[in-house]
């Protein structure tokens, strides 16, 4: 955020002062996370926009609708696939992994 010419940032805008920061494990990397951010928000903060591949063509996808409607942001959290990263809060100790294809097909739609 400091490379921003005018020194503006989402955090500066709302006067954010996170209670705690921690590292979230994602595909073997540790990403800085702030208490209260969703998994998608932690990934976006790290500049990661894609954490899933599609079933047909293996195309990369990430958060699209941001509100739980599109299911494009599906991810594996602590071994549980098909979690909507935009809704699920990240927690210290979580392990998040890229979801390839269907993950697991036990949900009815």
């Amino acid at each position, binding site marked *: *955020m400091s490379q*921003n010419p*005018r*020194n*503006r*940032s*989402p*955090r*500066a*805008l*709302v*006067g*954010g*002062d*996170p*209670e*705690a920061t921690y590292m979230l494990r994602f595909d073997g990397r540790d990403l800085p996370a*702030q*208490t*209260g*951010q*969703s998994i*998608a*928000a*932690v990934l*976006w*903060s790290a500049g990661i*926009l*894609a954490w899933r591949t*599609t*079933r*047909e*063509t293996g*195309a*990369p*996808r*990430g*958060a*699209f*609708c*941001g*509100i*739980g*409607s*599109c*299911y*494009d942001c*599906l991810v594996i*959290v602590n071994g*549980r696939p*098909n*979690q909507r990263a*935009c*809704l*699920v*809060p990240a927690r210290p100790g979580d392990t998040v992994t890229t979801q390839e294809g269907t993950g697991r097909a*036990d*949900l*009815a*739609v």
Partner: protein
Amino acid sequence: MPTSPSDREADLVGLADLAVVGAGPAGLAAAVAAAGLGLRVTVLDAGERPGGQYYRHPAPGLGAARPEALHHDWADFASREAALRAHEAAGRITYLPFHHVWTVVQDRQRWTLHAVAGPEESAAAVHAEAVLIATGAYERQLPFPGWTLPGVVGAGGAQAMLKGGLVLPGRRVVVAGSGPLLLAVAGSLAAAGARVPAVVEAASYSGYAGQAPALLRNPGKIAEAATYGGALLRHHVRLLTRHAVTEAHGADRVEAVTVARLDRDWRPLPGTARRIPCDAVAVGHGLVPQLELATGLGCATAPAADGTAALELDARQRTSVPGIWSAGETGGIGGAQLAMTEGEIAAFAIAGVPVPAALVRRRARLRAFAAAMGAAHRPGDGWTGWLRDDTDVCRCEEVPAGCIREAVEDLGAGDARTVKLLTRAGMGWCQGRMCGPAVAALAGEASSSPGAAPDRRPLSCPVPLRHLAELPATEA
């Protein structure tokens, strides 16, 4: 009250006078007003905190000292949230965040709402005498080549991620689509440090010209627009009207967009394309009422001015199904103030108390404004001209436009339902929420039957199969 995960699994939450689905401006205002009128209320919301899409705000852990910096009218929310907590403490409201209601069924004279609760996806059920559906809306998306590239995100989605998680999708963000939300989004992104090279609006604001009466009766809305306009000027954001992003370019993520001028039907004009470099695109073409719970119950819909289908509601916010009420954007897109007004009207009506005349007047004024706005930004039929045959229309099932055109032209599919059966467009995870309007337009539905009643969906969200198996056969 069931607040711990183990209690949630225990499942039953007594019998409420009123169950409210959705804790956005409409549901929150309704719940607080109804509890104030003496009803026992249970509120279920898919999200983590009350506020819905408009009053979405950072989690407490993010320590935002000025959450109001991202909102208008923050006090309207803060006072209602305080009332919610007070009613909760007094046992008049049971507030269940992280409860995604997937179906509502009638058994005898009361309603049972089934929800998937928490990340552990446990089953929960709530019983109530009356139900208020305040599930709001999601964004209308019109596909374009490259719209599945990482970095292309919903405009409201970018706003939601910024408000809730204090994050941006990129540093240089083109905002595109249609509708007043784009100005709000561009203003917030710029205030939060993104560079916004352009807001690309497909409609021409001259669409408002014939709407002077509705505009003049809403001076607050004009002031709001002026605030956004001022913010955009300050941040050097260009507003291109009657233009659209007709393609996003990039290998693994967006690197640039093509922007073209449109004719009055939203057809891209040849020779007007130019490229704008960017690392994200925030795109949306207005909002679509989120109706699956209501239509699943058989509630009647009617076409709205913006071309979407909305619930048919009477003066007391009643749907066509006795015992089921609705407020906010489910009854047509109209903004947070209207949603709160309607939530309060519904609360009075459900409590059997006369509705204050001021609320009725405010609703009429705001609905007139919403209709004017909706008509001005309604997509023109020519937008399908920017689709290529290989452009994915259905993001979930990866169905390209060519495949849908083939179903329509060669196989005779004349409506979205038939297209869906032939191509799988709309059959995936999101159940057509993202591709529905586009598929309908390609099937030729857009101009002939605007706002056609949406398909009934069996479930409003994916549900673990084990929960379905637990439902009595008559309910499923």
